[in-house]
C-alpha cells in the first residue's frame, strides 16, 4: 500500500472518493437531460429550508447514524454485517411488545424499556449469524443476507397473523397510546412543525460518543480492532476471537435495533410491515463513507439524511428525477469509498510526494 501523508489519508482521499461518487451521480442526472445543480439546490432547500423539512432530515439522520454505527462496529472487528435491515425489523417486535404490554404508561418509563427490549431482539438476530461464524464457520456476509430475508417472512407472518387486532384491515399491530410513544421534538420546539424527529435523535448522538469511547478508549475496543486487523495476532495475544465475534455481532444488532425504537416507538407508534424501509442498507454506505469513525458516520448520516429528505422534495419539484436517484448515489458512494477506496491512492501519492515515484520503483 502506498504511503500517504496522514492528513491526505484521513481527509483528502475519502473526500475525493465522495466527490467522485457525486460527480458520477451528477453525470447520470445530466445524461437524462436534467440539471444536477438545480437538483442539488432543491434538495438543500427541502432538507433545511423550512422547519418540518429540517425535522425530517434529522429523523432520517437518526436512523442512518444507528445503522451506520452498526455496520462500522462490526467492520472494526473485520465482520461485514449486511443485516442491520433485518436486525432492526426484528427489533421492532421487541419494541412493540413492551410498548403494548405497558400501553398507557408514561413514556419516561417505557422509552428505556423499549431501548432494552428492542436491543435484546436486535442483538439476538445478529448474534445467531455471529455464533454461526464463530462456532460453525459460516460467513456473516452470507448469513446476514439470508437473515434479512428470513426476518421479512417471519415478521410478515407475525404482523399479519398474530399482532394484527381483529377488525383492522391493514397489516399492522395495535397502536400505542400517545402518552406511551417516544415524544417528538415538535412538542417542545415549535420549529419542527409536523416532522417525526423524536427523542431518539439524542440517543443517536449519545451512541456516536459512546462508540468512539468504546472503540478507541477501552480495552474491549482495542480487542475489537486487533481482531479486525489481524485475527491470528489477536488470538496469539490472548483474545478469544470466537467470543469477540459473537459479542461484536450482538452489539452491532443492538445498534441496528435503535432504528426500531426511532420508528416504531417514536414515529408510527405501531408495528407496520417493512418499517425499516432500507435504512439498514443505507447504514452500509454511511459506514464506508464515514470510514467507521463516529465523526465520519455522523457527518455521512447527515448527508444521507439530507439526500433522503431532499429527495422527497425533489420528487415534487422535478418530476424527471425520481427518489431512486438517491439509491443510485448510495450505490456510487459504497462503490467509490468502499470497494474502490484505494483507486486514487497511488496517483495521489505520486502527486503529493514527487520523489516517491523514483523510490517506489525497483
Amino acid at each position, binding site marked *: 500500500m502506498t504511503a500517504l501523508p496522514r492528513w491526505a489519508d484521513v481527509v483528502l482521499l475519502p473526500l475525493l472518493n465522495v466527490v467522485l461518487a457525486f460527480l458520477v451521480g451528477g453525470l*447520470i442526472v445530466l445524461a*437524462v*437531460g*436534467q440539471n444536477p445543480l438545480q437538483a442539488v439546490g432543491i434538495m438543500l432547500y427541502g432538507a433545511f429550508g423550512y422547519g418540518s423539512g429540517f425535522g425530517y432530515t434529522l429523523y432520517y439522520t437518526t436512523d442512518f447514524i444507528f445503522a451506520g454505527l452498526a455496520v462500522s462496529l462490526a467492520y472494526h472487528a473485520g465482520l*461485514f454485517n*449486511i443485516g442491520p435491515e433485518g436486525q432492526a425489523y426484528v427489533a421492532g417486535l421487541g419494541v412493540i411488545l413492551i410498548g403494548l404490554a405497558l400501553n398507557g404508561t408514561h413514556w419516561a418509563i417505557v422509552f428505556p424499556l423499549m431501548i432494552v427490549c428492542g436491543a435484546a431482539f436486535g442483538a439476538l438476530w445478529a448474534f445467531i449469524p455471529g455464533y*454461526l461464524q464463530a462456532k*460453525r*464457520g*459460516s*460467513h456473516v*456476509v*452470507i*448469513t446476514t*443476507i*439470508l*437473515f434479512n*430475508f*428470513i426476518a421479512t*417472512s*417471519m415478521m*410478515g*407472518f407475525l404482523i399479519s*397473523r398474530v399482532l394484527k387486532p381483529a377488525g383492522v384491515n391493514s397489516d399492522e399491530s395495535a397502536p400505542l397510546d400517545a402518552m406511551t410513544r417516544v415524544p417528538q421534538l415538535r412538542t417542545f420546539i415549535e420549529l419542527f412543525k409536523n416532522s417525526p424527529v423524536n427523542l431518539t435523535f439524542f440517543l443517536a448522538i449519545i451512541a456516536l460518543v459512546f462508540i468512539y469511547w468504546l472503540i478507541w478508549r477501552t480495552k474491549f475496543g482495542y480487542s475489537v480492532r486487533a481482531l479486525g486487523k489481524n485475527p491470528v495476532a489477536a488470538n496469539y495475544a490472548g483474545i478469544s476471537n470466537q467470543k469477540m465475534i459473537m459479542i461484536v455481532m450482538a452489539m452491532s444488532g443492538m445498534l441496528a435495533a435503535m432504528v426500531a425504537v426511532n420508528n416504531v416507538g417514536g414515529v408510527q407508534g405501531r408495528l407496520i410491515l417493512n418499517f425499516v424501509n432500507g435504512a439498514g*442498507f443505507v447504514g*452500509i*454506505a454511511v459506514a*464506508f463513507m464515514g470510514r467507521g469513525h463516529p465523526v465520519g458516520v455522523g457527518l455521512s448520516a447527515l448527508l444521507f439524511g439530507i439526500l433522503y429528505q431532499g429527495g422527497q422534495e425533489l420528487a415534487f419539484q422535478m418530476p*424527471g*428525477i*425520481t427518489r*431512486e*436517484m*438517491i*439509491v*443510485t*448515489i*448510495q*450505490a*456510487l458512494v*459504497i*462503490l467509490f469509498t*468502499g*470497494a*474502490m*477506496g*484505494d*483507486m486514487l491512492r497511488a496517483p495521489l501519492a505520486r502527486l503529493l510526494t514527487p520523489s516517491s515515484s523514483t523510490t517506489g520503483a*525497483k
Partner: protein
Amino acid sequence: MESYLVDITLILDSTVRLAVPLILACLAGLYSERAGIVDIGLEGKLLAGAFAAAAMSAVTGSAWLGLLAGIGAALMFSGIHGLASINFKGNQTISGVALNFLAAGLTTFLGQSWFKRGGYTPQLSGDQRFNPITLPFANELREVPIFGQIYWELISGHNIITYFAFIAVPVTAWVLFRTRFGLRLRAVGENPKAIDTAGISVTLLRYQALIITAVLVGIGGAYLSIAQSAGFNNNMSAGRGYIALAALIFAKWRPGPALLVCLMFGFLDAVQFRIQGQVFPIIGEVPVQAIQALPYVLTVILLAGFIGRAVAPKASGIPYTKER
C-alpha cells in the same frame, strides 16, 4: 387420478418456469466463484439485465436485441466488479453490494426518466418477447394418456431461454471438468499463484470468468422481463439473485446439484401459491411466509454444517497480488 396428474404436471410446469432464472444466475455465479471472485452482485446484474432487455425490446421491437442489451448491461456491471475487485484489489463483497444498489436505483430512475410509467417499461407483445415453442408432435401426442400430457404441458411449450438454461447445465459441467479452460478456471479459484507460476494470466482468466457470468445472468435477466413477463417492473428480480447464491452454496459449487437445488427452490416457489389457505391433515394451514423463508433457512442450516459441509473455493474473495 387424472386430475391429480394434471395438478402435478401444472405444478412441475411452473416449477420449471420459476427455476429458469435461478438456474441461469446460479450457473453464472458458479463461473465467477470458481474463479475466485465472490459475486454478491448477481441480484443487481439480474435486475439490470431484465431492465435493459425490456427497454431495448420496447424501443426496437425485437426480443433478440433485447436479449443482447440484457447481456450488455450485465457485462457493464461485471466490468465494474472486475475493475474494483481485480484491478484495484478492492473488497469484492462491498463491490457486489454496491452493484445491487446501483441496479435497484438506476433501473427505477432510468425507467421513470425514459418511459414515465412509474418504473414500468411499456407492455411487450409478439416479437418483443420470447414466445412459447411447441415441440414437434406435441399437439398430436396431447391426447395420449399420461405421456402425452407430460410432453405437451411440461416439456413442450416453453420459450427458447428455458431450453437454453437446461442445456447450459451439462455444458457448464463439461467446460468446468473436461476442458483445459475449466481446469485453469478451477485452479485460479483454488490457488492463483500456481496459475501465475505456470505463466497464465490470473487477471485474464478472472475477467473471462466474469464475462461468462455476465452473459448467463444477463440472459437470466432477459428471461424475467421479456420471456416470463411482458415488461419490466420495479425490483422484479425480487431477491432471485440471492436465492441463486444460496443455491450455489447448497450445490457446493457444482453444476449438476445446482440444477437440482434450483428446481427444488423453484418448486417451493410454485407450491407457495397453491397451498395458500389450504388446510392439511396433522400440520393444519401452512403460512405462505414459512414456504418463502424455507430456501433461506435451509441454506443457513447447510452453511452451519448441520447437513453436510459447504466449502467455498479457497481463493474466493481474495484479490491476487503478484509478489514483487
